[in-house]
């Protein structure tokens, strides 16, 4: 085997490794370069300039504070709505594929066609609503406003497209949601290097647009028409952990991205007029802020509407219940997309979606329940929660099939809607509409039925009150009877209506009888005195029954059977077994005999009697002892207590006051008080009882004070309502007509003085010691609460800091001996093993804990105080507020909560809207998003809005004033006519014809009122696809001033017709003297720049005036005055109704056209003003007159300047003419010769001159040289001389110095 030659090791001579080695080597030798320069030469790095130091510090602080945002109250609810993920991109980039992949990733379900938003549960605490956004600019604008996260798909093989940039700009204007880029089509790159390069290029461009470091995702390729699983998974993870910043507009407005639309219009109306306005309901998660019922909303692409009704539904895509698990079950991975037809299948078990296919069986069940509820609700309109109930019951109304519902429901719903007028004293209430409607709809018999129902209601309530005596069986049975009746009614429907009617009275009668009998029993058993008490309690119980009813109606949501059984269970707790059995049997009976209500009623009443008798027999000692009865009542335990107290009081009173009348009165009062105020303080009540004469006033006062039904008092009562129902019935005359008396209360109110002063009807006697003591503690001088009392606090402090040693004196101070002893005692207790009772120990423990906590708090406060800044404080405050917002209504149930704070974001709600254009329904296309944007107060109004606007730098043209422009502002998209202006230095708003190129300008338009600071964008048209960038301008709302004045310049011209010195008369500027009078004193100017002023109107030519100038005018001058003419803003506001367009044409909305467009279309040329055409300029020659000097001036001039009066010599007269000389030939020759000679001579002389000059120059040169030399010599000589002189001088000086020194020494 031949051994291969191994490569020799070669030491490295360059590179970092070699460098390191060398360094080590040098270090070992001890000559290596020393450590850091900073260490070596610390002085070089100390503070060199304090100023610079200060500046750097300043800068860092600036940067730090820049990071702070103004803290805002976090108003996100506990269970936030799904995050809106908008998948956006140009066509054919893979949006639908991505959505499909994401859905599959999260839910393991495959959606074939995606229409509208898809809501999925993506994690334990996060849901997503994914929606696709096409490249229609309308859609882009709408979705940018509701998006929380934008997935921006970019075709890497192509690069960025205009849509992407447009969308980015839209986002920027409407608050910047999170944006994540996704690069697709990366598999088209064959070359790896090319791919890398493209990625980098795109990434950097993306970063400049969004923000440096924005996330860009790469989807490398497709597998079987889907993206790679791992990549999608990663993307999903990214989405589900992403945090979002709150956007101002979104957090301050409620909005709904509707995922379902139903039409509710009456089909009959549609049949009659297919183009009638529709009524629709929209479903979706509420986001943003709280939504109130009856508030205004805007539907982008449709218009403004008022919400006619809102209700919340159970969440169709609920988050899983709290659990410890890490991941979700398959079951919990929900998907909900009704527009795509998904979710219905999953949810048809849910009661909300019974109207979906294949759920008829369930629907029937619902129906069965309904009538009873209707009855219960309509008859016993419970205590104040009726309004709350309405919301829920209404929802169910439309699920109901019509035939049964119509009459009952009509009754059930008109009634609570009614405005209720309540007298404060008597609590009298009228509800007119109910009956009127009945009258219209039904015949007399039916109204009779109503009567009966009324009576029944009264009876029922009374029945309820009888519970005390006879147990709860009665009420129970009553209800069953009702049910039976209703069931019967339902079965027979219209056919057996009359029968049912006849049944009802019978039933009612029996009921009455029954009641009578029950009362009779009561009478036999009880003393008279106590009967009265029963009455009291009856009334009390009424109240209670209402509460029961309310709870019942809550049960209504459940199936009836369950509810029944529950009631049964609850009520039969204290009942005897026998009675229970009877009850059950009775129930069975009631259930069986559905056919003949009459029979049932009778039977029921019989059984009732039996039952009651049984009950009574069973009850210990019947109802002799009041308290016993009360105890038997399991429900009203607290009432029982109250009554006990009451009873005690009563006995006391009896003892005190013998007079019967007084007693009766007293009792009445008590009744009253108890009715309104169950927990009234006894002392107060006692006190007031002393004065019987002031009863009425007091009753009023007490009502003010009454506790439980204050809310009812304020927001309409249901209780008093019912009480006086029977009275109302009595008012009826013959059933058909009603005596309509204006309410006493309302009359009184109308005549009352509206004064905020709270007058005191009956002041308390403040001289009495007792009364005085009642407010003793309101003053600082009174007793303080434990934790605030200064003395107590001091004591505690002593306990805490009791033990300390005075180090200086060495004295040990001990705390309070008592405390010490206690502690030791407790120790002892521990030692002594249970020698002390436990509770005490616990108390001790608690005390100690308290102490510890206090100490810790104090420490915390001290410790934190150091770095707490204003910002921190603010943040803390906001946090507290947020906490309060969350917790305040937490314990309430949803229905009450909705009343207080409106529908909170995160709820799945159903919104009903009326008067929607039929096109919306007819041309409904689920691919286009339907958004309901809530409007704040007065945002539904239209007014003048001022903006700061800048033409977008990528938009190629400039914008013209008075050209219609489509703005996207707030929720809306609308076309309007803006006027551009710029503000001059003096605050004048000057109209601009065009927007400036690279500058902001103002714009004013007539449009919807939107809060200041809201961003907007403008586009010229939303239809079609233009190759250029579509966003024309962006900006922000500045002001909502109705009285803004935009002015444009107006020059009035006139011509002088008479010129004096500096004054002249000018005509042609004005048309009347009045106009002139208006402009008196105005500054005018000529074109040549002479300034002047308007003085006064002239009489002669109308509109002429006198003006003065700083100089004399010419007749040719043009005079003008500069004025400002206010421009009115055209009141044109046209919402873009793109959603009303037929499917497929939704992106072709075109509103008002610009004049330019119209001209272009029609081929109309602009008529040009002839004067503005360019012509060759012809300038006439200017002719100046001769200078004329006046004679006087001439005289004064000095002779030199005097114009010489040399008159032009006229033609010399002939006689003075000189004769012309005519030469002889000889003479001619001579002169020629002479001239030749002189020429020669001249030449000679010139030559000589030149020569001479030359010579002179030469000579001068020489001479200069000589001079220089001479000068040099002289200089040297001088030098010599001076040197000698200097030396001599020096010598002399030296000698003199020496001499002096010598002299000194000698001295």
């Amino acid at each position, binding site marked *: 085997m031949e051994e291969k030659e191994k490569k020799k090791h070669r030491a490295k001579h360059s590179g970092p490794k070699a460098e390191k080695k060398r360094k080590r080597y040098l270090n070992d030798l001890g000559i290596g370069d020393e450590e850091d320069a900073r260490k070596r030469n610390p002085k070089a790095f100390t503070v060199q300039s304090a100023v610079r130091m200060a500046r750097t510090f300043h800068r860092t602080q600036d940067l730090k504070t820049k990071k702070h945002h103004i803290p805002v109250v976090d*108003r996100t609810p506990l269970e936030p709505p799904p995050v809106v993920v908008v998948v956006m991109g140009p066509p054919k980039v893979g949006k639908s594929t991505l959505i499909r992949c994401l859905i599959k990733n999260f839910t393991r379900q495959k959606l074939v066609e995606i229409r509208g938003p898809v809501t999925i549960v993506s994690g334990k605490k996060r849901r997503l609503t994914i929606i696709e956004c096409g490249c229609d600019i309308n859609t882009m604008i709408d979705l940018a406003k509701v998006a929380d996260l934008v997935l921006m798909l970019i075709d890497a093989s192509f690069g960025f497209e205009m849509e992407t940039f447009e969308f980015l700009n839209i986002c920027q204007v409407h608050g910047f949601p999170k944006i994540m880029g996704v690069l697709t089509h990366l598999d088209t790159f064959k070359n790896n290097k090319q791919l890398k390069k493209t990625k980098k290029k795109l990434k950097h461009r993306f970063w400049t647009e969004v923000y440096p470091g924005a996330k860009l995702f790469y989807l490398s390729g497709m597998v079987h028409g889907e993206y790679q699983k791992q990549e999608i998974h990663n993307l999903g993870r990214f989405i589900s952990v992403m945090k979002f910043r709150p956007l101002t507009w979104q957090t301050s407005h409620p909005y709904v991205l509707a995922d379902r639309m139903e039409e509710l219009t009456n089909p009959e109306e549609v049949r009659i007029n297919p183009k009638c306005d529709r009524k629709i309901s929209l479903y979706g998660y509420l986001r943003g802020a709280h939504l109130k019922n009856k508030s205004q909303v805007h539907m982008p692409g449709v218009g403004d509407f008022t919400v006619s009704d809102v209700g919340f539904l159970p969440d169709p895509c609920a988050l899983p219940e709290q659990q410890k698990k890490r991941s979700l079950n398959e079951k919990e991975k929900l998907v909900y997309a009704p527009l795509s037809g998904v979710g219905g299948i999953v949810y048809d078990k849910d009661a909300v979606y019974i109207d979906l296919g294949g759920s008829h069986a369930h629907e029937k069940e619902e129906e069965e329940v309904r009538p009873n509820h209707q009855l219960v609700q309509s008859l016993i309109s419970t205590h104040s929660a009726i309004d709350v109930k309405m919301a829920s019951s209404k929802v169910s109304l439309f699920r109901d099939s019509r035939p049964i519902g119509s009459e009952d429901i009509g009754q059930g719903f008109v009634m609570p809607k009614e405005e209720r007028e309540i007298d404060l004293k008597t609590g009298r209430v009228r509800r007119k509409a109910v009956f009127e409607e009945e009258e219209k709809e039904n015949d007399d018999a039916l109204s009779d039925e109503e009567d009966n129902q009324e009576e029944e209601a009264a009876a029922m309530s009374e029945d309820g009150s009888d519970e005390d005596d006879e147990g709860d069986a009665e009420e129970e049975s009553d209800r069953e009877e009702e049910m039976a009746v209703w069931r019967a009614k339902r079965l027979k429907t219209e056919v057996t209506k009359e029968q049912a009617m006849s049944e009802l009275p019978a039933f009612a009668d029996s009921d009455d009888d029954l009641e009578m009998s029950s009362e009779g029993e009561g009478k036999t058993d009880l003393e008279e005195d106590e009967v009265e008490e029963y009455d009291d309690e009856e009334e009390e119980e009424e109240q209670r029954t209402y509460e029961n009813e309310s709870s019942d109606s809550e049960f209504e949501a459940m199936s009836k059977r369950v509810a029944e059984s529950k009631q049964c269970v609850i009520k039969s707790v204290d009942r005897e077994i026998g009675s229970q059995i009877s009850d059950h049997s009775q129930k069975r009976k009631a259930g069986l005999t559905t056919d003949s209500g009459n029979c049932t009623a009778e039977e029921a009443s019989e059984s009732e009697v039996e039952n009651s008798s049984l009950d009574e027999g069973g009850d210990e000692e019947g109802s002799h002892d009041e308290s016993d009865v009360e105890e038997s009542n399991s429900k009203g335990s607290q009432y029982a207590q109250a009554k006990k107290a009451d009873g005690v009081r009563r006995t006391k009173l009896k003892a005190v006051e013998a007079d019967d009348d007084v007693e009766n009165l007293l009792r009445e009062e008590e009744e009253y008080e108890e009715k309104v105020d169950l927990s009234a303080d006894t002392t107060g009540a006692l006190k007031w009882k002393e004065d019987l004469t002031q009863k009425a006033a007091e009753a009023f006062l007490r009502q003010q004070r009454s506790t439980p039904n204050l809310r009812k008092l304020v927001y309409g009562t249901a209780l008093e309502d019912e009480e006086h129902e029977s009275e109302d019935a009595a008012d009826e005359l013959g059933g058909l007509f009603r005596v309509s008396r204006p309410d006493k209360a309302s009359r009184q109110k109308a005549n009352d003085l509206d*004064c905020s002063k709270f007058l005191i009807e009956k002041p308390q006697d*403040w001289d009495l010691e007792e009364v005085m003591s*009642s*407010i003793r503690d309101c003053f600082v*001088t009174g007793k303080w609460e434990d934790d605030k009392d200064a003395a107590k606090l001091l004591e505690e402090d002593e306990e805490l800091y009791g033990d300390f040693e005075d180090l200086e004196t060495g004295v040990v101070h001990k705390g309070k001996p008592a405390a010490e002893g206690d502690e030791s005692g407790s120790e002892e207790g521990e030692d002594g093993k249970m020698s002390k009772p436990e509770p005490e120990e616990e108390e001790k423990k608690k005390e100690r804990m308290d102490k510890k906590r206090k100490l810790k708090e104090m420490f915390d406060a001290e410790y934190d105080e150091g770095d707490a800044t204003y910002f921190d404080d603010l943040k803390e405050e906001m946090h507290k507020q947020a906490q*309060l917002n969350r917790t305040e209504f937490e314990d309430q149930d949803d229905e009450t909560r909705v009343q207080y704070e409106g529908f909170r974001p995160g709820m799945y709600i159903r919104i009903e809207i009326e008067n929607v254009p039929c096109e919306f329904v007819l041309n409904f296309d689920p691919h286009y998003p339907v958004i309901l944007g809530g409007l704040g107060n007065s945002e539904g109004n239209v007014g003048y809005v001022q903006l700061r606007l800048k033409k977008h730098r990528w938009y190629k043209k400039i914008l013209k004033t008075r050209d219609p422009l489509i703005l996207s502002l707030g929720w809306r998209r609308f076309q309007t006519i803006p006027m551009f202006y710029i503000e001059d230095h003096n605050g004048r708003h000057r109209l601009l014809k065009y927007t400036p190129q690279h500058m902001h300008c103002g714009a004013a338009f007539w449009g919807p009122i939107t809060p*200041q*600071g809201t961003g907007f964008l403008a586009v010229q048209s939303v239809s079609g696809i233009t190759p250029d960038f579509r966003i024309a301008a962006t900006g922000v709302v500045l002001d909502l001033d109705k009285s803004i004045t935009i002015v444009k310049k107006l020059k009035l011209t006139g011509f002088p017709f008479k010129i004096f010195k500096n004054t002249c008369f000018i005509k042609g500027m004005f048309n009347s003297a009045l106009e002139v009078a208006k402009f008196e004193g105005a500054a005018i100017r000529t074109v040549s720049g002479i300034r002047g002023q308007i003085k006064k109107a002239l009489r002669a030519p109308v509109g002429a005036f006198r003006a003065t100038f700083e100089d004399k005018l010419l007749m040719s001058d043009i005079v003008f005055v500069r004025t400002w003419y206010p421009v009115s803003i055209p009141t044109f506001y046209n919402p873009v109704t793109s959603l009303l367009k037929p499917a497929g044409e939704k992106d072709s909305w075109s509103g008002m056209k610009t004049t330019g467009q119209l001209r272009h279309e029609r081929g109309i040329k602009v008529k040009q003003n002839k004067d503005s055409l360019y012509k060759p300029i012809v300038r006439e020659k200017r002719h100046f007159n001769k200078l004329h000097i006046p004679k006087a001036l001439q005289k004064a001039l000095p002779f030199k300047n005097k114009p010489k009066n040399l008159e032009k010599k006229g033609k010399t007269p002939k006689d003075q003419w000189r004769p012309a000389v005519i030469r002889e030939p000889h003479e001619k020759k001579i002169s020629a010769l002479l001239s030749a000679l002189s020429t020669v001579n001249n030449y000679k002389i010139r030559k000589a001159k030149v020569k001479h000059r030359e010579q002179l120059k030469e000579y001068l040169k020489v001479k200069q040289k000589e001079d220089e030399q001479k000068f040099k010599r002289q200089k040297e000589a001088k030098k010599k001389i001076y040197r000698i002189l200097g030396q001599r001088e020096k010598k002399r000086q030296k000698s003199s110095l020496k001499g002096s020194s010598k002299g000194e020494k000698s001295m």
Partner: protein
Amino acid sequence: DFEASFIRLIDKVTNGSRIEINQTGTTLYYQPGLLYGGSLEHDCSPSRSIGYYLESLLCLAPFMKHPLKIVLRGVTNDQVDPSVDVLKATALPLLKRFGIDGESLEIKINRRGMPPKGGGEVVFTCPLRKVLQPIQFTDPGKIKRIRGTAYSVRVSPQMANRMVESARSILNKFLPDIYIYTDHMKGVSSGKSPGFGMCLTAETINGTILSAELASNPQGQGTAVLPEELGQNCAKLLLEEVYRGGCVDSTNQSLALLLMTLGQRDVSKVLLGPLSPYTIEFLRHLRSFFQIMFKIETKNPEEEHMGGEKVLMTCVGTGFSNLSKTIR
């Protein structure tokens, strides 16, 4: 009469309102305009006192376009409406709680005018706010001092002193820190009719201010009132007010509730004494205008001697913001 004057005032304050009243004066059509504000003057009808006008201005003033500065002329104190003194003492501190404060929040009484002829003059200035702060105002605290003004115009200056004396005699049983100013106006600043009266305020350690007032019968109506009696009655009224308690004076309940309603979308809480009928009616209006319902809880004072029952009102604001305020 006073209604017409009030409508005229509203017209002055706003810009672009449309008001139509039919000939018989039975119907009124009102289309609100923009709250404009600015420097204004208004002659109030003497049939109601300035307090009547001022109360509504207090509600509107923070939401104007330009800061309001208005001179109101008329009756400053009468027996029906809350007087200017009371509003000055109670409403302004209340507004401050909502973040409406600053130098310019002020009510200045230049002249006093008593009914029936009036002749008083009040200057009210108020700054602007874009949004109001939510309040948590549930602890009234204990009363630490009682202040007040006893005024007398065109009567003997001794009247004021007599009122003070008698009021002190009652209040001194509760608190030593009492100071009641006597305000005797002379000459032009005393208005056109004679009269006297008194208003008392009780301030707690937490800044709650409760008030009570009483004025003499106007000249020529009713019997003459003894100043001692008036002082005593006024003091008793204050005690009554204290008994009712709450963090807000009974006259200002509605103002507090309105400002809570107009606040940001946060929870506001306030503890009130028993609701006055006016407030109850006001609450109904609030519901019909803003769809705002208050959570109303009654609170019994835990201790014996803390006065009557209190009502805890809670609501979520509507998120109202002043749209007319210009931003730069």
